[in-house]
């Protein structure tokens, strides 16, 4: 567990929880990123303002952090474009079908003690662990 960073993890987690609660208290919305984002992908005109503002803030965070000297490193992704595209399609389709992602089910849904979200979180955690076990160990990658 050489990479374990409990203090920064706890501080970051408190901020994520705080953001979810503040979004609910202020605008009455669930801070589930897949839901916030997918609401921007249709041509209907209503309720896009808060979605754009929230995702704008999300993208602005590393830019502002960079200005004060805490720039974000380039994320490291697999070298295969096919893997990146397939993963993106699965994340997009799966989060819509299952009604949420790590934030919507994991933080907000479990935060509201929803049984649906507890089940969804267990399912995506287990399938993700199995996927990593197969790609990193069984396939020798």
């Amino acid at each position, binding site marked *: 567990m050489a990479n374990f960073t409990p203090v920064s993890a706890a501080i970051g987690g408190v901020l994520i929880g705080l953001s979810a609660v503040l979004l609910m208290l202020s605008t009455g919305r669930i801070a589930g990123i897949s839901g916030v984002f997918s609401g921007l992908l249709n041509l209907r005109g209503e309720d896009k303002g808060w979605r754009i*503002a*929230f995702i704008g803030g999300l993208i602005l965070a590393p830019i502002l952090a960079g200005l004060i000297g805490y720039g974000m490193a380039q994320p490291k992704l697999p070298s295969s474009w096919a893997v990146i595209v*397939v993963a993106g399609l699965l994340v997009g389709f*799966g989060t819509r079908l299952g009604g949420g992602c790590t934030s919507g089910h994991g933080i907000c849904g479990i935060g*509201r003690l929803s049984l649906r979200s507890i089940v969804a979180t267990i399912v995506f955690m287990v399938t*993700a662990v199995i*996927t990593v076990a197969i790609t990193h160990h069984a396939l020798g990658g």
Partner: protein
Amino acid sequence: MWIIAPLLCGLIFGAGLLISGMVQPTKVLGFLDIFGAWDPSLAVVMAAALAVSIPGFMLADRSARPWFAGQYFRPGKSGIDLPLVAGAGLFGIGWGLVGLCPGPALESLATLSPEIIVFVAAMAAGMIAHDAWQQSRLTAQRDRQLASATDG
């Protein structure tokens, strides 16, 4: 200026992902790789977030309406069904393949990394494909109901 509220919430959320390191796929994969050099950090992030969100949502439940909106928009569904389990399963496979879920993926657009832009485009395509499929199912269902109504 109610729009400041969701903007600030996005900033705080982004700061949380940055500080916790969860914006980095390698950090997330370190948690998911329980048979490798396991890194429990993501579990601490979730526990800390829930320690705030559980009492916070209870507080929201006790207030009649949000500060800047007419009503709360809470998910209406309850009960476990096949779409929930299948959707979560597919999402988990995609998450495990690259270590990116929607929040960190969108936040990483700030780096202008070509890989991130392609991932977010594929994610958007997956969401649009799902919604188009649902729409066509609903239309087919309505057509069948109309046909059987005229038959009867």
